[in-house]
C-alpha cells in the first residue's frame, strides 16, 4: 500500500546512511596488511574415512603459502569444539561426515592461486554407509556418525544436551504435565496427524567471512559473527589462548538470521592464520555458506484429544529433528521446538518429546525463532484440521482453547504477557480493511525468546558532548544501533545525532551473550539504559560541585547540564571539575539475571507472539499459489523504532513465505542437490502479497526500555500454516509437508478431483 508520507526515520537515518552510499564496511570488506587468502577443499562424499590426503603438488604451486589439513590438528589445545557437544574437529581429521565438510584449506597469495591449488590436492576416501534423513538415522541398523558424545554443561547455553550413547541421537528433550493417556480415555475426539518441515537455508546475502591475524600471542579476528563472545570463548579453548588475548571485531553484517550465531568458520580460519604465520582471510561463496549451516528439518506427529465442545484435553507430540553432521545449537532447537509446539493454549495434559539426531547432511543451526516455524507449522495446521473435522469454525476452536493474558503455557515458564484473542480480532479487522472480506486462513503463535539476560555496555560522554556507546550487540540489519541510540538519547536527554554506536569489539566492550533470540532490545537496551543512568549520575555529581548545588537541582539538557536558568556545557563541567579542558565520564552497566527491578530469573523474559491471516489464489492448471492478502500482528510492548519494527515483521513474514512455498534443501544419495543460489529459490519481489499490512500492538508492558518487548522473530511463525489453512478452506486440499510446491498442490487438486468422482 502506498503511504501518503514517509515515516519518521530520523534516528534510523544515521545508521542507514552509510548503507545507501556504499560507505558501510562489512566483514567481507575487511583487508589487513600482509593478508593471504584462503580457499576450502570440501568433502564431495557424505560419509567416509580419508585414506589419503596428498597436498605435495598443491603446496609446490607458486604462491601457495600453506595448506591446513587434519594433520595440523595435533598441536591444538582442543581439537573438537562445540556449544553443547565437542563434536566438530576444526578441520576433518580422519573422517568426513557430510558433503561440504572442510578437508583442506589452501592459503595463498591470491584467491586465484588458492583456487588453482585446490585442484592439485589428491584425496582418497573409503566410503562408509550414510544417512541423509532423520528417520534413517534412528533406524536400528543405522551407521553411527559419532563414536562418543562429549556433552558440555552450561558452556554457552544453560543446561546440557542429553545424547543417547551408541546412537545418532544427540539430544532428547521432554515436556510432561498431567496425564495425557488418562485424558485420552475421557476424550470425545482424538486426532493424529504428522507434519514435515524441511531443512532450509539462511541465505543471508553476505556469505560468512573471517579475517584472522596473530601479533605475537595476541589474536585479532574480524568476523560477521552474531555472537562475538562465543567465538572468543571457543577460540580460547581450541588454541589455548587467554580470553583477554583474543579480540573479536564485528563490522556491519550482511544478514544473519541465526546463520552467523554461535561459532562457524572462525576456528578454521584462525588455525590457518596460525600455520601461515600471517593474516588469513576466508570469505565463503554463498554456495559454501549453504554448506555451512541450515535450519533443522522436522517430522512432527501430534496426537490431540478434545471433549465434545472442542476443549483440548491433551496433546502428545513427537518431534524428530534432522540435526546434520554436527550438533551446533541443535540441542537448543529441540528444546525450544518442544515448548513452541504447545501453542498459546490451555492444555492440562502434555506429553512432548523432541529428539535431534545426527545425519550426513549440512549441520543444523539456529535460524530465526529456533524450532518455532517447524512447531507452529504442525500445531496450527492441526488446529484447522480438527476444526474442520468437528465442524467448528477454526477461529472459534482457537478461542475456546486460548490462554488469557497471564495464563500459563507451562508452569515452569513466565505467564503469557499478551492477549492472543485481541490479536486475532485485530488481524480480522486489518484483513477486512484490505478489501474482499475475511481471511481464508489464520495461525497464531507464542514463543519463548529473550534468553540469557547477561550483557553489559559502556556509555562514554566525551568532553565535547559527543557520546560513544560500546555494546557487543551486532547490527545484522535488525536495527539494534537505532534502538540503542534512542534509549541513550532519551535517558541522557541528548540529541540522537550526538551519539555514536561503536562496532562490537571484545577488547574494549563488556561481555554480551550474543545477538539472537530477539534479546537485544530488552537486554542490551536495559544495559545501555543503566549505563547511561550511571553516566548521568556521575555527571550530575561533578556538576553539583561546580554549581555548588545538590545533584537533585540539576538536570541534563542537550549538550550539558542545567541548573535553573543556568546552562553549562559538558566541556565546562569537566574543565571545572578536572582542572583541564579534557576528560570524560564513563557510565557502565551489566544486566544479569539478578538485575535490580527486573524479574529475570524466570524464562522467557517476554513472550514473542504472532497472528498471521491471509488469503490465497491458486492457478489450478499448474498448481502455483499466490498469497493475495497478508496481515501480521505482533505484540511488541513498545516500538522504539516503529519503521524498523514494521520492517522486521514484514521481512520475517516474507522469509516465512519462502519456507511455505519454495524452500527446501534437497538431498539425493547424500548429495545436496540444490545447495547453490541458482537452484535454491528464495522469495523475489514479485512473490509477496500485493496487499499486506502489519499491526504492532503497543501497551508498554514489556520488560525493556520504554516498555519494549523483543521482536523480529514472531512474524515468521504463522505464515506457512496460515497459507496451508487458507489453501484447505478455499480449495479443499490439506497438505502436511512443506514447501507447498506447485507439484504438491497440483497433485492434491487432482486427488481431490478423483475422490469427488
Amino acid at each position, binding site marked *: 500500500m*502506498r503511504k501518503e508520507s514517509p515515516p519518521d526515520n530520523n534516528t534510523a537515518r544515521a545508521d542507514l546512511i552509510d548503507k545507501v552510499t*556504499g560507505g558501510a564496511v562489512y566483514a567481507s570488506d575487511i583487508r589487513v596488511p600482509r593478508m593471504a587468502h584462503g580457499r576450502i577443499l570440501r568433502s564431495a562424499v557424505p560419509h567416509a574415512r580419508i585414506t589419503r590426503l596428498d597436498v605435495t603438488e598443491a603446496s609446490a604451486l607458486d604462491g601457495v603459502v600453506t595448506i591446513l589439513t587434519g594433520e595440523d590438528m595435533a598441536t591444538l589445545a582442543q581439537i573438537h569444539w562445540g556449544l553443547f557437544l565437542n563434536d566438530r574437529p576444526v578441520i576433518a581429521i580422519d573422517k568426513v561426515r557430510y558433503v561440504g565438510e572442510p578437508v583442506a584449506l589452501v592459503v595463498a597469495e591470491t584467491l586465484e592461486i588458492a583456487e588453482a591449488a585446490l585442484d592439485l590436492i589428491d584425496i582418497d576416501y573409503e566410503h562408509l554407509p550414510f544417512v541423509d534423513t532423520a528417520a534413517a538415522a534412528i533406524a536400528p541398523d543405522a551407521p553411527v556418525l559419532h563414536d562418543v558424545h562429549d556433552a558440555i554443561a552450561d558452556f554457552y547455553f544453560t543446561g546440557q544436551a542429553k545424547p543417547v550413547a551408541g546412537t545418532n541421537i544427540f539430544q532428547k528433550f521432554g515436556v510432561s504435565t498431567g496425564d495425557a493417556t488418562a485424558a485420552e480415555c475421557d476424550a470425545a475426539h482424538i486426532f493424529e496427524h504428522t507434519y514435515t518441515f524441511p531443512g532450509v537455508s539462511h541465505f543471508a*546475502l*553476505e556469505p560468512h567471512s573471517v579475517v584472522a591475524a596473530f601479533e605475537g600471542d595476541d589474536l585479532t579476528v574480524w568476523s560477521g559473527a552474531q555472537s562475538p563472545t562465543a567465538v572468543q570463548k571457543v577460540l580460547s579453548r581450541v588454541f589455548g589462548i587467554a580470553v583477554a588475548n583474543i579480540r573479536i571485531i564485528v563490522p556491519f553484517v*550482511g544478514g544473519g538470521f541465526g546463520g552467523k550465531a554461535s561459532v562457524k568458520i572462525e576456528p578454521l580460519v584462525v588455525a590457518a592464520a596460525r600455520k601461515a604465520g600471517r593474516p588469513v582471510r576466508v570469505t565463503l561463496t554463498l554456495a559454501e555458506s549453504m554448506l555451512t549451516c541450515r535450519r533443522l528439518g522436522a517430522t512432527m506427529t501430534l496426537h490431540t484429544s478434545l471433549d465434545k465442545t472442542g476443549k483440548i484435553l491433551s496433546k502428545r507430540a513427537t518431534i524428530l529433528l534432522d540435526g546434520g553432521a554436527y550438533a551446533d545449537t541443535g540441542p537448543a532447537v529441540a528444546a525450544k521446538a518442544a515448548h513452541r509446539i504447545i501453542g498459546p493454549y490451555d492444555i492440562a495434559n502434555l506429553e512432548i518429546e523432541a529428539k535431534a539426531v545426527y545425519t550426513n547432511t549440512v549441520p543444523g543451526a539456529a535460524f530465526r525463532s529456533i524450532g518455532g516455524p517447524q512447531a507452529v507449522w504442525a500445531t496450527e495446521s492441526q488446529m484447522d484440521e480438527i476444526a474442520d473435522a468437528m465442524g467448528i469454525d477454526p477461529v472459534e476452536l482457537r478461542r475456546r482453547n486460548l490462554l488469557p493474558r497471564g495464563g500459563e503455557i507451562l508452569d515452569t515458564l513466565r505467564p503469557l504477557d499478551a492477549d492472543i484473542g485481541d490479536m486475532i480480532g485485530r488481524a480480522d479487522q486489518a484483513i477486512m480493511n484490505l478489501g474482499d472480506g475475511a481471511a481464508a486462513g489464520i495461525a497464531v503463535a507464542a514463543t519463548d525468546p529473550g534468553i540469557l539476560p547477561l550483557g553489559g555496555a559502556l556509555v562514554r560522554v566525551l568532553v565535547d558532548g559527543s557520546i560513544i556507546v560500546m555494546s557487543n550487540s551486532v547490527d545484522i540489519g535488525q536495527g539494534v544501533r537505532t534502538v540503542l541510540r534512542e534509549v541513550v538519547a532519551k535517558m541522557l536527554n541528548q540529541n540522537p545525532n550526538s551519539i555514536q554506536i561503536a562496532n562490537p569489539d571484545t577488547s574494549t566492550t563488556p561481555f554480551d551473550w550474543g545477538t539472537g533470540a530477539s534479546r537485544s532490545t530488552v537486554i542490551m537496551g536495559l544495559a545501555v539504559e543503566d549505563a547511561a543512568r550511571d553516566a548521568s549520575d556521575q555527571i550530575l555529581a561533578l556538576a553539583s560541585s561546580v554549581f555548588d548545588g545538590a545533584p537533585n537541582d540539576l538536570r541534563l539538557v542537550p549538550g550539558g547540564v542545567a541548573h535553573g536558568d543556568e546552562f553549562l556545557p559538558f566541556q565546562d563541567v569537566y574543565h571545572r571539575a578536572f582542572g583541564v579542558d579534557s576528560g570524560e565520564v564513563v557510565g557502565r552497566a551489566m544486566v544479569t539475571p539478578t538485575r535490580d527491578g527486573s524479574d529475570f530469573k524466570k524464562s522467557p523474559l517476554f513472550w514473542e507472539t504472532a497472528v498471521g491471516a491471509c488469503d490465497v489464489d491458486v492457478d489450478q492448471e499448474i498448481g502455483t499459489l499466490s498469497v493475495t492478502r497478508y496481515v501480521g500482528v505482533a505484540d511488541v510492548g513498545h516500538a522504539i523504532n516503529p519503521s524498523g519494527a514494521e520492517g522486521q515483521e514484514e521481512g520475517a513474514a*516474507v522469509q516465512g513465505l519462502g519456507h511455505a512455498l519454495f524452500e527446501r534443501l534437497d538431498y539425493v544419495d547424500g548429495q545436496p542437490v540444490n545447495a547453490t543460489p541458482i537452484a535454491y529459490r528464495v522469495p523475489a519481489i514479485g512473490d509477496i502479497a500485493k496487499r499486506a499490512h502489519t499491526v504492532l500492538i503497543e501497551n508498554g508492558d514489556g520488560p525493556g526500555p520504554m516498555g519494549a518487548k523483543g521482536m523480529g522473530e514472531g512474524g515468521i511463525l504463522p505464515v506457512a500454516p496460515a497459507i496451508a489453512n487458507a489453501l484447505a478452506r478455499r480449495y479443499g486440499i490439506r497438505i502436511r509437508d512443506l514447501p507447498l510446491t506447485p507439484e504438491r498442490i497440483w497433485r492434491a487438486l487432482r486427488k481431490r478431483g478423483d475422490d469427488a468422482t
Partner: protein
Amino acid sequence: MTSSTHNISMTLNGEKTNALVEAHTLLIDFLRDAQNLRGVKRSCDMQICGACTVLVGDHPVSSCTMLAVDADGADVVTIEGLGDRDNLDPVQEAFLEFGALQCGFCTPGMILATKALLFSNPTPSRAEIEHHLSGNICRCTGYQKIIEAVESLAQT
C-alpha cells in the same frame, strides 16, 4: 595460470580511468579490489541476486558475471558514484526515508537497479517495479518498503 593483459579505459563514477587488467578479471574484482569500490557487494557469484549490480551506460549489470575488459569504453557507475552523505541521490533518499533497507547488503544493487528503471521508465507501475527488480534479492526487508520507496519516486 597464464592470461593476456589488456589496457582498458572507462568512465568510472564520472572520472576517466585507465587500467591494465587480465583478460579473465571480472568487473566486480576490478571494482572492489583494484578500484577500492567496496560498495559493490559480492554475494551469489552467478548473476541471480543482484547485489553486485552496477550501471553500465544506463543499464543495470551484474558485475560478477561481466569481464572488466568488456567494460572498456563504457560509462560505469557504482553506488559510490551516485551520491554522497551530503548530497544524496533521490533514490538513496527514498530508501532512507521509507526504511527500505535492513542489513544493507543488497542495497547498493537495489538502488542502482531502481536508478536504471527510472531512467527507462520514470513512472513505473507496481507490476513494472516488480518485474524490473525481480533480479535483486533482499532477504531482510520482505520488499514492502522497497516497493513503497520506489513508488514514491514514481509519483514525482
